[in-house]
């Protein structure tokens, strides 16, 4: 398995917790985690990305241990990308700077080229000089995805990618995203509450029970 999560547990407040979550994911696939609100989907992503520390469990990505009972790899060393539900674009940087920020140090020399391609892919070449506050919700999402892809993540996480888009835009983005991810060969996990979105995009679906 490319990503292997075993027995992951976490308690994030008095009443809600993630108990013994396990799953395995192949490289280059898109997996949807389906669950209603409050089922801990976002927290699961934060745990996988390293923003939260699990109580117990073990996770291996591409042969490297991300966490188990004695190791914990810091978020910035995991090479896992996350597109937040509200995108978290840096408001003081332009679209181009936001994407540039994602480029790795080792690829600094190819920075221009990487950014140019990504801008082209997400069709934002014209809008590269704009600030996030001047962009529509759909544009912001594309910037966020491009920024995450610029970092060549081993694993890309998407948190409710369609919650802020209207129906029309959502259908378009679904198609585009699938196309981009396959083109880049990215391994993707997305969480959503919409069965339709999951069915369209994902190669595999994991259902998360409600109030666990």
């Amino acid at each position: 398995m490319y990503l292997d999560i075993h027995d992951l547990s976490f308690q994030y407040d008095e009443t809600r917790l993630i108990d013994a979550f396990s799953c395995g994911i192949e490289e280059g696939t898109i997996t949807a985690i389906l669950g209603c609100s409050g089922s801990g989907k976002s927290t699961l992503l934060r745990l996988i990305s390293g923003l939260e520390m699990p109580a117990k469990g073990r996770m291996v990505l591409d042969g490297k241990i991300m966490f188990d009972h004695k190791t914990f790899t810091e978020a910035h060393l995991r090479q896992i990308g996350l597109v937040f539900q509200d995108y978290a674009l840096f408001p003081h940087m332009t679209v181009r700077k936001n994407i540039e920020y994602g480029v790795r140090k080792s690829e600094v020399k190819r920075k221009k080229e990487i950014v140019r391609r990504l801008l082209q892919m997400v069709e934002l070449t014209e809008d590269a000089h704009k600030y996030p506050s001047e962009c529509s919700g759909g544009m912001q999402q594309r910037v966020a995805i491009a920024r995450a892809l610029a970092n060549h993540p081993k694993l890309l996480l998407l948190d409710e990618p369609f919650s802020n888009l209207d129906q029309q835009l959502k259908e378009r983005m679904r198609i585009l995203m699938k196309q981009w991810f396959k083109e880049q060969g990215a391994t993707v996990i997305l969480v959503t509450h919409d069965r339709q979105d999951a069915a369209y995009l994902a190669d595999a679906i994991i259902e998360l029970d409600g109030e666990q």
Partner: protein
Amino acid sequence: MIWILLILFVFAEAFVQLFAAPSELWDHITRYVLRDVITQTVLLVVISSFCASLIGFAAAYIITVYEFKGRKIFSFLLYLPLAIPPYIASYIYSHMLGYTGLIQTVLRSLGFIRVDSSLFSYSSMQMAVFVFTITLYPYVYITAKGFMQKYLGNVLETARTLQKGPLQMAMSIALPISAPAIFAGFTLIALEILSDFGVVMYLGIPAFSTAIYRSWITLGDFDSALRLSAILMLFVLAFLLLQHQMRKSKSMGASVRIRPLRRIPLKGWSEVGIIALFVGIIMFALIIPVGQLVLWFNVSYLNIRWNQFGQMLFNTLTLSISVSVMIVLIALIIANYTRLSRSWLSVLSGKITLLGYSIPGSVVAMLVIFFFISLKRVIPINTHTTLTMLVFGLILRYLGLGFQNIESGMRKIGMKFNDASRLLGKNYIQSLVRVDIPMLIPSIFAGFALVFIDVIKELPLTLNLRPFNYHTLATQVYQYAADERVVESAVPSLLIILISALLLWQVIRWITKEEN
């Protein structure tokens, strides 16, 4: 963290007094002085802070929501009264209304030979409330305006579609939404009044700070003064923690999309009315006091000692700038710590930074001196000829002011952007420097400006902790004002106001540039 410990060490001397056996005078103080002092202080602090907050909020709201002639100029001028030291304002207004003041003089010269002075009489309390209101409202104006500009956009547009009237919109929507920001400003005002000594002393109001001073200076009982200070600090701390608790239970979702607000143009009489209102505020808070100072400047600049004025100016600037810069840096470090850890310890340490701001400066000065004297027993340091003591004391006193600003800015940003940055392969520190701090720049500048303006007019610490032959504009103001030569104090006072105004102007330009 080390800094918090240092603060506690310095204040320890005061808290120790709480447990020491009370002196014989303490009995007298509690019997005759304390009750009066507490009621008067509470009255003064509550009424003044309320009036100042009301003006600050109203001004911020109108400036943010409406478009009218002169809006930009007003929005800048409204900051400036912050640069006028309250005690100078109290001299000015008492003087103006008094027998030799402008009003009665003009009336007399118009032929009213016996002007009835009782027409211009006022109680000390009224004067104090007035003075604090006009000099301190900018604290709320600043905090409320910054907040509303960011978070009022969406909500107000919704409210307008619901056909709410203008007053209703302000009171039932803008007020509750910006309550945390207003409260932050309110707290600063209240603390500033609590620690004020000049105004209450001059006007003869038995406030907490005069009681502290009196038990120390006149009764020679410094221990009782420390005990009073400790009581005051405990109250302040309790108040701050209570406020924190309230804010926590009411905290809003921080994910409001920032949308610039489209201002409502005002026309006809409503525009005239609003302009008149602002002209009125600016008139009383800025033009009259500054105008009076200019008149005094004009008659007195030949009669004062100009030696070393350049040196004084240099000292004033270097001191204010370096202290403000250091406070901003320390505040950043502590704010970052409180952001990372949500334990009660980190909350408490945030509040502790405000303690130095709540008690009279002269008590802080003494505590700093004692601290250094005890330090000297451990490590041989020179406590006289260096600025270390003064800089340390000023940071101790004003750290809370800078911290409040930077911390609230940091809280608004939250961890989200830092998280996003770390997931792009940057470590925490890199993320802090490249993402959080640039986003914080408006808060940092605002914190810097507030601290600067307070340090430049600060008196008791500078007076007590400065090295030999070290004079600043503020000590020069003191020299004349303490000698009841208010007219002569106009020269350094005006310079202080001028420098503060220039700085504010520059900082506001930077902030607007950053925000766009």
